């Protein structure tokens, strides 16, 4: 069984601070939703409200169509995996995994069957008698997931589950999580500050900032059509370049300081003369002069194996620039080079509102109020 989740105008206030401000979000049954944002953006609070660990100040939460706004955590048919794993230190792995079932007085053979099944899925059958302190970080993480699986809930909640692991293990567990989701098909809400985790795991990403949803969309949508400056800057690595400019013509942005004019993929409806922010992904900057050429002073060249990330400043304006170019170009450090732009990676944002002027909000993509 898997159940959808619906958040209706969910708000959390601590005193005068509004941590989560009227969130509306619908997750279909079986969907993998990732809440992403910087620390303090309200993503963990939102997850904890879904779990029932935190009371909502306003709004309603529905799981599987049932209003659970005031229900106890154990009445919501959810399981949660914590960043610190939160294993019971005095219990063995098997006891950790079966604790919830023993509380419901499930039959012994049923408990053994479900614990065995979960342990087999996660490859921790040989650890069942150990105490958590005798396990590595990765093994504890598996036990925490096992404890969630054993309960066969309708919804899985993950609160930064991979943040305490080293980079290599994190990448490996990320793949395992994706496989696990495919296998179990349970609705999942996953909180992370790591946009790579968000991009690789999510069916839909929810980007939060100061308690407000900035955009909801598939990884492709939020990468290719960021609705505003915040999303554009948050999603994508390295971070998108942002230059101050003016809309000189419907399909042209001038960067006065750099004395360059950049052609846009399509003409805009906005007023000519409007101050804008030109956003270009590092991958959208190409080596060599083109129809319009940006001069870049390269300070550092980082060779990453398949591409080289050039960090420097824009000649004329001195604004920081990052370009990700294919191949090895370590020799470009301390040189001044020509870059051309790939119009597909060019975005224009209103300098005042921060909204994307090229890609207006798609139908049904904007669930923010």
């Amino acid at each position, binding site marked *: 069984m898997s159940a959808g989740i619906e958040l209706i105008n969910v708000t959390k206030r601590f005193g005068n601070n509004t941590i989560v401000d009227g969130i509306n979000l619908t997750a279909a049954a079986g969907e993998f939703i990732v809440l992403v944002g910087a620390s303090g953006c309200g993503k963990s609070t939102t997850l904890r409200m879904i779990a029932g660990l935190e009371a909502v100040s306003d709004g309603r939460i529905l799981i599987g169509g049932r209003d659970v706004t005031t229900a106890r955590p154990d009445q919501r048919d959810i399981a949660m995996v914590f960043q610190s794993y*939160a294993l*019971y*230190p005095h219990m063995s792995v098997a006891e950790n995994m079966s604790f919830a079932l023993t509380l419901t007085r499930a039959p012994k053979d049923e408990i053994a069957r479900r614990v065995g099944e979960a342990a087999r899925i996660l490859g921790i059958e040989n650890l069942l008698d150990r105490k958590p*302190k005798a396990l590595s970080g990765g093994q504890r993480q598996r036990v925490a997931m096992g404890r969630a699986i054993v309960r066969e809930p309708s919804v899985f909640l993950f609160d930064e589950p991979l943040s305490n692991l080293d980079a290599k293990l994190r990448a490996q567990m990320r793949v395992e999580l994706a496989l696990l989701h495919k296998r179990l098909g349970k609705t999942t809400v996953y909180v992370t500050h790591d946009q790579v985790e968000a991009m690789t795991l999510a069916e839909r990403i929810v980007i939060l900032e100061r308690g407000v949803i900035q955009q909801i969309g598939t990884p492709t949508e939020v990468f290719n059509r960021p609705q505003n400056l915040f999303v554009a800057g948050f999603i994508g690595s390295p971070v998108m370049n942002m230059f101050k400019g003016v809309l000189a013509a419907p399909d042209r942005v001038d960067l006065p300081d750099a004395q360059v004019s950049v052609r846009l993929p399509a003409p805009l409806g906005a007023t000519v003369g409007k101050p804008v922010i030109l956003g270009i992904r590092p991958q959208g900057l190409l080596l060599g002069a083109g129809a319009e050429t940006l001069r870049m002073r390269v300070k550092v060249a980082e060779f990453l194996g398949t591409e080289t990330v050039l960090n420097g400043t824009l000649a004329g304006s001195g604004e920081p620039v990052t370009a990700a170019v294919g191949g090895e170009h370590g020799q470009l450090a301390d040189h001044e080079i020509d870059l051309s732009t790939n119009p597909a990676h060019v975005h224009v944002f209103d300098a005042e509102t921060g909204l994307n002027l090229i890609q207006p909000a798609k139908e049904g993509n904007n669930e923010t109020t």
Partner: protein
Amino acid sequence: MTDAGGAAMTINSRSNSRTAWFFILPAVIIMLAACLYPVISAARLGFYDWSMGTPWSQAKWTGWTSFEIVFTDPAVWRSLWTTLKFAAVSVSAEMFLGIALALALEGNIRGMAFFRTLFILPMMVAPIAVGLTWRYLFDAQFGLINALLAVFDVAAKGWLADETLAFAAIIIADIWQWTPFVFIMVIAGLSSVDSTVLEAARIDGARWWTVTRRVKLPMIAHVLAITLVMRLIDAFRVLEVIYVLTFGGPGDSTEVLSMYIYKTAFIGQRLGSASAISVLLLAVVMFLTWLALRMSNPLDDENGQ
């Protein structure tokens, strides 16, 4: 690190350790003089018949006679039994009340800091003063306790004159003074418990009592064990409050081991026997101390981190 470096380290740490011993030597000498010497001389006294005020040269070597008394004197075993009863009742009540209070007062409720401070005050009072205070409270004629009972139409009781009530009185005084110790230890233990583990238990379907019994208290089991043993050690050595409150009476109803040792030495003037019984008490307390020290080791990996 290279092998040469490792060897240098070893030599270095060896001479460091010699230097360290040199620095703590004065403290070690004072500790030995203050602790080990009295223990040895008390044990030695057990082999002699000697009265205070007489020259040591007149002391008579009696061999193991005094130690035989330990095993044959019914008063020794009676007072040991009284000590056991006293320790069992008072310490279990203190543990129960201390844990219950700590569970009730943990968390950040407004005004709790005030109550926490209030609750630990009895621990700060000197035991002699505690004894005196309770003697007035239990006083048959002018005591506050009988006055309170009178409010509920309960007849005045001779608290310190009745064998059962006197025993209850010393236990009440001990509970009053030492429940705060258990309270402090448990509060400190509870504050170290990872709150996400408790949240995980709530999600797993555990309600308050189940979380407390099956997660919270087991997670501070080491703290509870050490607290228990430390209280037992103190309960076995208890003297001052009883000395002031009942002086072991009426009869011998509240005569714990240390009270009996005191009477044997300073009233009966049988220093040899008193020393021999002291060795017995010392053995019991040392065993409990050893238990406490052994339990204090696993504290560092309490939360399985």
